């Protein structure tokens, strides 16, 4: 085997799947997993969903594997609570806050961190949601009986937080700069269908307006009001900022690796520096399924990329392109939204149900090809399109397929 020490930086989903895959391919050399958080790899999606639901005790976010299983079964040298501070790609050495680590293969899986509101003071009651600590804080605010919750950003996390707040019967306002929620993720037409979903559940959705500032209560350091760009204000005792995530690449400054909203990789997830690969939310790679460069913040892509990067790092000569049809889901109120593929389309057509009902499927067309599918409570049908899109099914055949299932 050509690699004599594989090092994985970032002990979350991508990093975990990388070490698992490394062992599964038969690699039995030294394997180190470095993670800045003090926790074992844990699952983030529940943090904005089940974790916020009312319950006597907050549920523990599921860890994927017990410590013993990682250390003993997979024989991983686990370095939790340790941050990588830089990498010397010529000498093949990773710098840590407590030392240095030579590698032959390196996988960068440092994910992303929540974006903060720019130009706002640090006030109590204002939170982002990325880590288990963040989730505990948001949950504690809701438990303490928040009166006016303002969510900034109607993306997935913001929307899920809004749904969780409504489930507790508390009032919530969502402020979104774009004309509809989720524009980047699912496009404008379907974004407006999702806006109606919020409205039907009593969420006050304000689109096309941004946050101009936050104001503390008289003589306190706790948020009391949110000032909007249209001059209006909202009362708020809790603000959750869901304005997206930025790839965690700060520690790579000066490494010579190409950084452009993520670590830039080729089709095999290779960065160009010898032995260095990237995976997960931090990686921007060319996805052969669409011939586009993308950086996804999706659970399934992250899991797949972690494994693929490890296989390629261990066998660089036989490195395989990593191709995937993106998939993400989001749970709002009692509803499951699922999106497969890419949202840039010349046409979006609703093929089952209608967007004012509780379930529908919409297909996205580029040229003569189906490139995307959005389902609301269409669990049975929607995943069929993951294969159909992967095999580059034509628009006509996609429509016929749906007809045939009726």
């Amino acid at each position, binding site marked *: 085997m050509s690699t004599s020490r594989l090092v994985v930086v970032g002990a979350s989903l991508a990093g975990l799947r990388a070490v698992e895959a490394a062992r*599964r391919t038969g690699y039995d050399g030294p394997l180190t997993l470095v993670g800045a958080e003090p926790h074992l790899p844990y699952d983030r999606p529940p943090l904005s969903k089940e974790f916020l639901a009312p319950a006597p005790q907050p549920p523990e976010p599921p860890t994927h594997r017990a410590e013993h299983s990682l250390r003993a079964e997979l024989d991983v040298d686990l370095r939790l609570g340790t941050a990588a501070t830089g990498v010397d790609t010529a000498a093949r050495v990773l710098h840590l806050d407590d030392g240095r680590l030579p590698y032959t293969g390196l996988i960068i899986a440092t994910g992303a961190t929540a974006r903060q509101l720019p130009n706002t003071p640090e006030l109590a009651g204002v939170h982002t949601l990325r880590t288990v600590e963040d989730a505990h804080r948001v949950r504690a605010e809701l438990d303490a009986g928040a009166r006016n919750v303002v969510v900034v950003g109607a993306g997935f996390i913001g929307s899920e937080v809004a749904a969780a707040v409504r489930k507790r019967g508390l009032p919530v306002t969502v402020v979104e700069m774009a004309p509809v929620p989720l524009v980047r993720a699912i496009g404008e037409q379907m974004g407006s269908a999702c806006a109606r979903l919020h409205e039907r559940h009593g969420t006050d959705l304000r689109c096309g307006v941004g946050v101009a500032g936050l104001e503390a209560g008289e003589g306190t350091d706790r948020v009391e009001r949110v000032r909007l760009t249209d001059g209006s204000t909202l009362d708020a005792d809790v603000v959750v900022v869901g304005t997206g995530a930025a790839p965690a690449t700060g520690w790579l400054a000066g490494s010579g690796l190409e950084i452009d909203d993520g670590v830039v990789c080729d089709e095999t997830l290779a960065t160009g520096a010898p032995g260095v690969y990237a995976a997960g939310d931090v990686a921007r790679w060319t996805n052969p399924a669409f011939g586009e460069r993308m950086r996804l913040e999706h659970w399934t892509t992250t899991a797949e990329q972690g494994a693929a990067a490890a296989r390629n790092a261990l066998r660089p000569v036989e490195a395989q392109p990593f191709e995937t*049809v993106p*998939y993400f889901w989001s749970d709002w109120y009692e509803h499951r939204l699922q999106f497969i593929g890419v949202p840039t389309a010349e046409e979006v057509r609703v093929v089952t149900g209608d967007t004012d009902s509780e379930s529908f499927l919409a297909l996205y067309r580029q040229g003569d090809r189906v490139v995307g599918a959005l389902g609301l409570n269409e669990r049975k049908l929607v995943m069929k399109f993951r294969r159909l899109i992967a095999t580059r099914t034509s628009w006509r055949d996609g429509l016929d397929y749906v007809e045939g299932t009726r």
Partner: protein
Amino acid sequence: MKIHIDEDKCTGHGVCEAIREDVFEVGDDGVAHLITEELTEDMREDLQDACDQCPTQALRLEG
């Protein structure tokens, strides 16, 4: 070799079905079902993939 679906955990993402549509299918009830019991050794890698990629960790490969 056997695959076990924990119906309490499965929420019907269908990731398993996208990997092996000849083994898994999400039903009208919104959870995955096995459509065959005949699992062969050459499917092992795909089935392991399905277990790893199930977002709710509802799948377990035994044997």
